[in-house]
């Protein structure tokens, strides 16, 4: 029974991880850049949720919409005006640029919100349901379900909408897409906006689970990377599989070795995987 309980905890965590990684993976796959700002955007979303609850009493499950909008708008502007200037340069250039932007974002958040760790303490938590000996933390469960719904919406948008098809086309072949009349620079900006929206919304959901401070962003960034490599880069399905895998792994790893070693376990697994199956669990596939 305890194994089942830990599996459940892992899946709840994994849903949130999938949401973090989906946006990161999208930008990596389509723009070929690693967004070092991803962790910062998650933290930004968590702060939107925290202050919405503190000042207006808006539940994080509702304010995730606001967080997503703010994050998305911010992402669009940053990509359209700054990153697009160097988007085709080598990795080190784009990576250093997004790191510089992340430093500015972190400094701004430190000034605005201080370095204290914050977490949303719900006044009316949903509590836990007892399912024949299994404890279901309902708030976490709802957070996971919302995260998966959000990922599903983005997936559907990529498949069905014009903008979504443009994103997929640019991912497949930038030059060909450009010849077919896709506005590549604008598509890049939209892609980054979607990624930033997912990050901020995930941060908002996370604020119920994890304490957050402006400097915790790198932890989330590390997890997003591990998930992307686990699942395969640039695919939403891969991010979901990778996220759930990491959630389960951290849960059982914590049970066996102690929770403080979660990232180490994940990294060791990552190295093993990179040596034996470099294309990820899901392999290289499109959207």
């Amino acid at each position: 029974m305890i194994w089942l309980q830990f599996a459940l905890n892992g899946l709840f965590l994994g849903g949130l991880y999938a949401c973090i990684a989906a946006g990161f993976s999208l930008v990596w796959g389509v723009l070929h850049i690693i967004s070092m700002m991803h962790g910062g955007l998650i933290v930004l979303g968590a702060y939107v949720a925290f202050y919405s609850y503190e000042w207006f009493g808006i539940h994080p499950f509702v304010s995730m919409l606001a967080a997503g909008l703010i994050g998305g708008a911010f992402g669009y502007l940053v990509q359209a005006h700054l990153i697009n200037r160097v988007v085709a340069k080598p990795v080190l250039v784009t990576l250093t640029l997004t790191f510089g932007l992340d430093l500015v974002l972190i400094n701004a958040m430190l000034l605005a919100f201080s370095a204290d760790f914050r977490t949303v303490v719900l006044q009316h938590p949903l509590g836990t349901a007892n399912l024949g000996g299994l404890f279901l933390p309902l708030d976490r469960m709802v957070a996971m379900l919302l995260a998966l719904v959000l990922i599903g919406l983005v997936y559907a948008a990529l498949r069905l909408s014009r903008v979504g098809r443009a994103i997929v086309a640019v991912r497949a072949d930038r030059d060909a897409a450009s010849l077919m009349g896709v506005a590549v620079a604008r598509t890049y900006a939209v892609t980054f906006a979607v990624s930033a929206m997912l990050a901020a919304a995930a941060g908002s959901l996370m604020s119920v689970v994890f304490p957050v401070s402006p400097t915790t962003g790198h932890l989330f960034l590390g997890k997003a990377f591990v998930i992307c490599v686990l699942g395969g880069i640039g695919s939403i399905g891969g991010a979901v599989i990778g996220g759930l895998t990491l959630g389960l792994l951290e849960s059982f790893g914590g049970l066996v070795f102690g929770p403080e070693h979660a990232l180490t376990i994940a990294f060791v697994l990552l190295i093993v995987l990179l040596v034996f199956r470099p294309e990820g669990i899901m392999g290289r596939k499109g959207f």
Partner: protein
Amino acid sequence: MKPRDLLLLLAAVALLAAAPLVGGNYVLRIGTIMLMYVALALSWNFIGGFAGYPSFATAAFFGLGAYAAAVARTGGVPEMFAWVLAMLAAGAFSLLLGIVILRLRGHAFAIASLVVIEVLREIVTSWEDVTGGGAGISLPFAGATPEAIAAFYYWSMLGLAAVTFAATLYVARSPLGFGLRCIRQNEDAAGMVGINTLLFKIAAFVLSGAFAAGAGAVYASWTSYIDPVDAFDIVISIKAIVMVLLGGAGTVLGPVAGALAFMALDEFAWRNFLELHTGILGVLVVLLVLFLPTGISSFSLPDTVRRIRRRYGQAARAQAR
């Protein structure tokens, strides 16, 4: 190395070594930090500059060196031996790590090297018996006067920076440097003409790891207290990268010039805008990447003037229309 270069290097070192005779403690503190970053920038230049591999592991090696030296010191190992031991340990670590993660390229390598920092910090924090955990570790204090201590660590850092520089100069002119430059330009082609690319990359990574660890080891003795957050700070990696980019990657003098220029700016930001320090560093990085992607050496005044004139000319014409 040509005799003339050796002579120039010795002259520069001798000149710098005279600083404690004229400068006060403040000058020596700034000088020590500057020399530490010169060593770190040069150490990153092996893997990031010559081989063109975007490594973020500098902070991991720095922290590993600091902790290896600190643990050796608390075990009673004499200071210099502890430093050498730390460099050897980090060299061995980067060898093993390199065998695995140097198979990756580009983005994947970059982030794998980044996660190494977080993992080492996690291990050091949870391994309380040896490392003191999150509370940090204090090193035995050498009972000399503050002036003597300041001068000693300044000279130690100078020695490390000089050795790292000499190694860079040697590598740049050796077959190793040639092979690494080939790898940077086109790794597959380099492999095709018979360069053992994995071996060359590992050699660069080990050099990078050992020298960065040396800087960490001397730093630990100098500050006589380290904790996991301070020692495994990713900003160390970023600073080293930005310095090398600023000065010119894959060159010999570029990292040194970049480190000195950057530290001067950094010190200015610290003194005048303490609260905004990280933000200013970030803006600096952004401006550097957007406007000087190949370093200070790519800056040419006539070009810039022409560009600005063209842009404003366009705007004026657009307005007139």
